């Protein structure tokens, strides 16, 4: 149905979106400006970040609009908005650097600030240099989530604790950022390769709905008695998690939220189950039903996100471990929040592929080229990973007296390195090309993501700062 509606639109009406987004940006900037006039401080970090958020959101809307309608002029305006957002973001980074007196790598907030900046730069590079125009549809929402997460985190400039006062910190972290960004790019290229390699749309359906099922299954590990969902308690005054004792966090239970998440899990699982049935019965009509189920699941996912946002950001809840009522916050559950947003976004990307596959195939480079660019990106990422680990080892040796202590972050960095080393060996000596190489690149990036986020939040260790 939606497909028919989209195709009936003549290309000229495409200007409406540009006008709407432009007016929206202008209005939001004007409101912000009024606020600034009152307080009298124009160019501070939070204003710049706010401007960056508005421009990134505008760019994201236009990129998505381009993805859905295929109107070329959207991309032009989207990249203008991206440039504007990047300018504001650069200002915020520079301001932070100046205020803190060190490059913004010291806390998770500062890392995010740098990460979003890198992402915007990469988007522009990918668009201008490699002609991968739709890449903004993927990167801009990530940038938006990043900026929103930043608003939730501690922003005050932390002085560097003695162990971090080293040039090697900057070398190590810069290399890590570059390496991870290159890995992210190789992942995106591998995904695009699979589209160009004529991988069946149903396979993407299965993969995306499995991913979403994984997200909700992960969230439901926090399922508590009587349908509650337990979240980490948050002290709004200190902007910090609440601890019962050293290393043990206090959890609060939001009643009934667990049931909702369980319901969404069942709905997002439906497309996958339908896909399996269709596959077994060799009946394609099941796929059509599955696609409709994806549409329904997006609506429910949005509902889940909205309820989560409302309930987690306000209200006091009881805890199973301690007396009294405690508050929680979105900042206390960055994983659940990113999971929810990521799930929606993942399903939307699938719809984009479902509806506009022909256009995407026309706009993207050929499969052969993508395969080669993916390999080249990894050829850049791998030496960067090597240098990053080496710089980290050297720094650790100067600080802790040991270049390798099998700390989880170190171990996972080594695992990442080994996975990419495996990719290179298979590609060079065994001639792995195309799909198998693309799967390998995707696996590599999954490991990178775990090393970056998973280890910090899920595993104990010395890399407590970032």
């Amino acid at each position, binding site marked *: 149905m939606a497909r028919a509606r989209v195709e009936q639109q003549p290309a000229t009406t495409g200007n409406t979106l540009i006008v709407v987004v432009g007016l929206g940006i202008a209005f939001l900037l004007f409101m912000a400006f009024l606020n600034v006039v009152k307080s009298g401080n124009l160019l501070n970090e939070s204003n710049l970040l706010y401007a960056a958020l508005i421009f990134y959101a505008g760019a994201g809307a236009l990129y998505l609009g381009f993805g859905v309608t295929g109107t070329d002029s959207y991309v032009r305006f989207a990249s203008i908005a991206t440039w504007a957002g990047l300018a504001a973001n650069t200002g915020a980074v520079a301001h932070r650097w100046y205020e803190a007196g060190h490059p913004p790598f010291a806390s998770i907030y500062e890392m995010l600030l740098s990460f979003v900046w890198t992402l915007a730069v990469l988007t522009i590079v990918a668009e201008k240099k490699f002609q991968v125009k739709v890449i903004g549809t993927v990167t801009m929402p990530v940038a938006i989530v990043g900026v929103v997460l930043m608003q939730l985190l501690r922003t005050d400039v932390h*002085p560097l604790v*003695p162990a971090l006062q080293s040039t090697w910190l900057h070398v190590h972290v810069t290399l890590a950022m570059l390496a991870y960004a290159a890995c992210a790019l190789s992942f995106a290229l591998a995904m695009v390769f699979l589209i160009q390699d004529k991988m069946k749309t149903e396979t993407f359906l299965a993969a995306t709905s499995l991913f979403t099922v994984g997200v909700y299954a992960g969230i439901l590990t926090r399922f508590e008695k009587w349908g509650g969902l337990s979240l980490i308690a948050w002290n709004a005054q200190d902007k910090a998690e609440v601890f019962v004792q050293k290393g043990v966090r206090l959890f609060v239970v939001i009643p009934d939220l667990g049931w909702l998440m369980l319901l969404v899990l069942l709905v997002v699982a439906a497309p996958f189950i339908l896909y399996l049935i269709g596959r077994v019965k060799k009946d394609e009509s099941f796929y059509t039903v599955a696609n409709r189920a994806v549409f329904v699941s997006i609506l429910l996912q949005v509902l889940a996100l909205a309820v989560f946002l409302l309930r987690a950001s306000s209200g006091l809840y009881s805890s199973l471990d301690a007396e009294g009522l405690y508050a929680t916050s979105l900042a206390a559950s960055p994983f659940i929040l990113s999971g929810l947003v990521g799930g929606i976004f993942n399903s939307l990307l699938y719809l984009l592929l479902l509806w506009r596959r022909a256009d995407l195939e026309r706009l993207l480079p050929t499969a052969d080229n993508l395969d080669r660019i993916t390999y080249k990106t990894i050829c850049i990422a791998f*030496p960067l990973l090597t240098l990053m680990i080496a710089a980290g080892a050297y720094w650790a040796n100067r600080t*802790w007296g040991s270049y390798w202590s099998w700390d989880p972050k170190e171990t*996972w960095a080594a695992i990442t390195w080994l996975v990419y080393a*495996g990719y290179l060996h298979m590609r060079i000596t065994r001639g792995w090309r195309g799909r198998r190489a693309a799967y390998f690149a995707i696996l590599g990036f999954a490991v990178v993501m775990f090393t970056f986020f998973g280890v910090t939040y899920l595993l104990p260790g010395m890399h407590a700062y970032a």
Partner: protein
Amino acid sequence: MAAASSTIRRKVWQSLSSIKTGVVLLIIVVILSAVGTLVLQRPVTEADEMQRAYSPQMLSLLDKLGLTDVFHAWWFVALLILVSLSIVAASIDRFPNAWRYFARPYKSPDRPFRRALPTQIQIPIPDEETGLVAAERSLHGMGFKPERVVGSDRLSIFAERNRISEVAVYIVHASLLLIFLGGIIDALWGWRGYVSLTRGQETSIVGLRDGKQKNLSFAIRCDGAGQENYKDGTPKKWWSQLVVVENGRDVQKKEIVVNDPLVYGGVRVYQASYGPTGKLDKLVVNASSLAGEKKDLSLSLDQTVAVDADTDVKLAEFIPDYVVRDNQVYMRSTEVENPAAHFIVTSKKSGKQVNFWLPPLEGFAENEQSPYQFTVEDLKMGYYTGLEISHEPGQWGVWAGVVLMCVGLAFVFYIAHTRFWAVPVRDEKGNLVLWVGGTVNRNRDAFEQRFQDLTEKIKSELKEMKPAAAFRRKWLRSPEKN
């Protein structure tokens, strides 16, 4: 028998050197390392925390499997050695071939080679010499150094660049082995320990990680240590003034801070922590006599100071946080919360001793009998500086390996072995042509473009050279038919 053992040897070698074995071994390493990060590890995590995290049965099972200290388990080390052996075997297996490429470059292509080479072209030339000169000039123009190869039957041109690229991957493998070697040396002969020193203290005994003790051939003395804070009270800098003492002489002095260790005789001393010892450093008291005389005295624990010709005072006890229970004074904590000091005032003449307490604790204090009343002017607590001490004889292997690996990777990824050949031959129709071929070991796209450039260049050179060639043709023998 001999045949069987040689087959077994060959089979072991084959499976060790195969890339499949290497990949399987690496997958096992990856899985075990991942397990090692998911299960809490023994030396880092304290015993009671382990007990809190796992049930007793689970913990004993994990301990039995060795999963609570994966990275120091014998089987993990054995696995890493197997990986090293596999890398060595794979390299030895493949190296001779690559070395042949490297040591004896193939300069004069024969007919089967010319037929099989994918990237090649034939350019008509007026005569052999003109063609060779044109090829030489063009290659020069592209930054190559072409050489004339005198074959058994003809002259040809060969040019190449970055031959090292053929063996670069072995540089990377060798560097990995160097890193492993460094790690193994450190695992066998290296050690790590910790000492804490207060100002003026000296030690040559280090408490090691595994609970043992190590006697150093020299001693370390701390001449001072301190902490600087940011405005918000978080620590900015820890420093210690250290002196290395060997055979009673001060041989090296350095103020170390975090990230800047002292190195002496292969032993490194790192600033690791800084904190209060809970013990008194100096107590400054004001003594006032019944006659109204006042005097400041500085006392440390167990120190006796003369107040006047007859009276001595000794600081017998200092309790940073006291509590009185059942007629006993106890120490509740080492933090200066509720301090109490016990002085003993002695008269030399009469030998009479008086217990003076601050504050005057009931049942203990005989303050009113003392010839002097004491009040506290200043209280200085002692601080310790925590020092990590390590000896890593293998680290130079590791750093050398890291540098070598970076060089090797740069060669592997960014440098391609490019080769060009030019041979004047007769084509099928018997016309004289210059056969130009080229090959590269990676980055084909850029190479194809380059080959295109080269052929364009040769063609334009030939166009320019035509008149001269026509003149020279008479003197040159015509090329033999191929």
